């Protein structure tokens, strides 16, 4: 599969020129102290061990929040934005098709998420080993983090396509979306919230089912259907916005 010039441009800017290294630096400089202090600092409560027992939970949640946040910002081209060619130029002047553009954006988003996960992997794996977390659970957590980062990161692409020339709107949008997804969603229905879901998954605790019009949906199903809808709607919005760009 050829990923075309859009993907190469992103790789050149992020990895060859090193503009993406800032993301990796921020991730590590935030994640490493969180993991270490969780291990080192005493618990606040007699029943809830925030120390080694909770090390993997806390580390996984911190990594997930950071990776989702930076995925949104990378997809939104917030790092070295002046280096990227405008979408319109790719689509109209360079004759890149909509499908090629979408494929390239999705590939670079996936690559960035993968790199962020790889960078945080040693810390998370050590935390898992200390907290005696099963290998299967650790692998599941990595897959979940990738899934969340992709589901929300797609909305970074959508914001880019919708308001390419209005960077302030884009930035406000992705941050608002991030806060809503990570924190406000817990107020609506707890299992929708990725943090709550991750904690319940690692704590092997059942979450309350979703009851809609008298029909009960298992919390897991509700969670994944919601996030697949988030991913799907983000992708559709992005494709429609790219289409509008061509039409205009």
């Amino acid at each position, binding site marked *: 599969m050829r990923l075309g010039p859009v993907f190469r441009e992103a790789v050149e800017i992020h990895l060859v020129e090193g503009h993406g290294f800032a993301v990796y630096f921020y991730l590590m400089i935030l994640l*490493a102290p969180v993991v270490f202090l969780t*291990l080192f600092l005493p*618990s606040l409560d*007699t029943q809830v061990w925030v120390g080694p027992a909770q090390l993997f939970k806390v580390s996984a949640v911190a990594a997930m929040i950071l990776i989702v946040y930076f995925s949104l910002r990378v997809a939104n081209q917030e790092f070295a934005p002046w280096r990227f060619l405008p979408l319109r130029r790719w689509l109209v002047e360079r004759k890149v098709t909509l499908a090629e553009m979408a494929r390239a954006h999705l590939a670079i988003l996936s690559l960035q998420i993968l790199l962020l996960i790889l960078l945080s*992997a040693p810390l998370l794996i050590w935390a898992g*080993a200390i*907290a*005696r977390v099963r290998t299967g659970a650790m692998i599941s957590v990595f897959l979940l983090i990738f899934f969340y980062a992709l589901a929300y990161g797609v909305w970074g692409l959508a914001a880019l396509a919708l308001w390419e020339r209005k960077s302030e709107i884009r930035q406000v949008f992705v941050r608002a979306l991030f806060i809503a997804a990570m924190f406000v969603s817990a107020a609506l229905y707890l299992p929708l919230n990725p943090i709550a879901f991750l904690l319940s998954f690692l704590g092997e605790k059942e979450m309350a089912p979703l009851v809609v019009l008298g029909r009960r949906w298992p919390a897991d199903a509700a969670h994944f259907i919601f996030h697949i809808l988030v991913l799907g709607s983000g992708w559709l919005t992005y494709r429609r916005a790219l289409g509008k760009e061509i039409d205009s």
Partner: protein
Amino acid sequence: MSFSITKAALAFCLRPTLILLLFSPLYAAEVTLDVQIGFHGLFQLDRPFPIKIEVVNQGPPVEGTVEAAVWKGGGAKGSGAFAVYHRRRLLVGAGARKSASFTIDPGSISRPLVVSFRGPGSSVSKEIDLRRYFAPAPLILLLTESNLSAVFPLNSGAANPLVAVSPEELPSDARAYGGVAAVVFYEPSLRELSGAQSGALEAWLASGGKVIVLGSMHYALYQESALARFLPVRVTGLRNFSALPGVQKAYGQSAPPLTNIPAQVSTLVEGTSVIEEQGIPILAQASRAKGKILYLALDVGRPPLSRWEGLPRLFRDLLASPGESPTAPPPAWDEAIFSQLLLNPSLTSSYVPVRAFFAGTFFYLTGLGFLTWLWQGRRLSGRALGVSFLSIVIFSSCGGYLYFNRGGNIPDGVLLTSTLLEPLPDGYVEASSNVALFSTLRREYDLVLESGWTDFEPLARRAAGAEDNGLVVEEEGGRPRFRTSLKEWDYRLFRARSVSRFPVRVEFETQPNKRVLKVANQSARDLTECWMILPGERVSLGDIPSGSVRVREFPLAAAAADGRAAQGDLREILFNDPMRALLLRYSYFPREQGRPVGAALFFGWVQGGPRGVSVEDERVSARDFTLIRALFPLGEEEE
């Protein structure tokens, strides 16, 4: 020829099933259980008691597990109920019977005791309603081989049931005496008593039991070493007394006078003579740690004494329960205290690899930084960068995982024992041991209770379910093993108690112008970081090595002068190990008990002190703390 698969399958499955159904009940019925509760069917409510399960096998030899299941906790105790399973493996020969004895301590008798035997091909169980067997008062055990005991008015007017037992019926576990007020010896032969039975009796006596030895005409029985070690006297013979004015005066002033009474002749070895006739002890008493031994030289089973009207009064006096000796409050122990200890860095470092984690993180980040530097300086090609990055990530992840999960210094569990020793007379100490077992992974642990330790009890966890709280007691080879399973980063608390010899004598004397403390450490252990706390005075005594005596004088005038400057506050005392300060503050002298007011307090740490519980597993690290303390009440004027 027609062939039906359905019919063939049915025939194939049904035949063996029918055979199995026909024969399996017959086979199972070959093993029956005979259960003896308490002492001849009696036990005291809310106290541990023995049970004996006899497996009667009328079939081929069978090997299986005998189990007695009781429930503890729950209800008014404010914690979740949990089951305690007492188990022992038994091999019962063909047409034979074998028994297993357990000491059980059900939390309530409203739930039945469930006993069972399970082996390959045989499974029998039985539910026993304990409400039919309990007595509200402690029992009196009469140990005799004489048939004259029936005439004893031992429990006349008392609520204590009297149970006559033979020596072989005595339990081998000191805990089984929990509901026994006194053991009375009359013409017993203790030659057949096993070492475990003898040890259990001594342990119970030392921890507050009472032994009454009634004399007999067969005085030779009392010269046997097995019995002689319980006597405060050495029996040498028999003599007829024309009168016993001392006994008459004490117990039979309105009764006809005693004449021509045979009594054992003896010399006092320990304790005191309460009643003497012609220099011969008639009634003598001695203490054994917290316990008491009474010796009566008279033969109460035979005339003329057996018909004497003063006998019931004499027995009432002998059996009177001794007043509770004042004891210092036991060390506090609960989840809040344990969590304080667990989170202390000095203990945390024993199970959390903080340094290794920090070093790993540092080297990983340094490696990434170095790669970035190489890349920005164009010293690496894109491919080399990719390969190097992946190598660092994979090597760090795998190496760290193997180190932290399999290797490193993370133990499977941490066993923390904190023991408080309180000196008793005669070189004994009462030891209260608080035990915590903390697990870093999900597994089972076997805790071994050392001999002489009793009252081992798990503290029920409020947050845990009944299945998590369950405890299996395996009583093989004399030392009970308590098996408990813990989840990862879970813990469980226990208590144990013992009275044993530990010859450290602490004496404190107040003289007109000074106070004098004398500590004689005749034990094999060193005492370290010893302190003396007096009102307004706090004095470090340093270490007191094994075999040494330390005498220290405290002038009264100096104490009054320094009173304001040096308050006797225990919380301000610092130790080399911060865990000691935490234990002192939260467990030995908790805030609610406060600082001992109006008393002088001596304490010191015992190096390698007695430990009641151990885990024989090298993957479990152990931390022991033992404190010996002695409290001396001061006069009112000194407070």
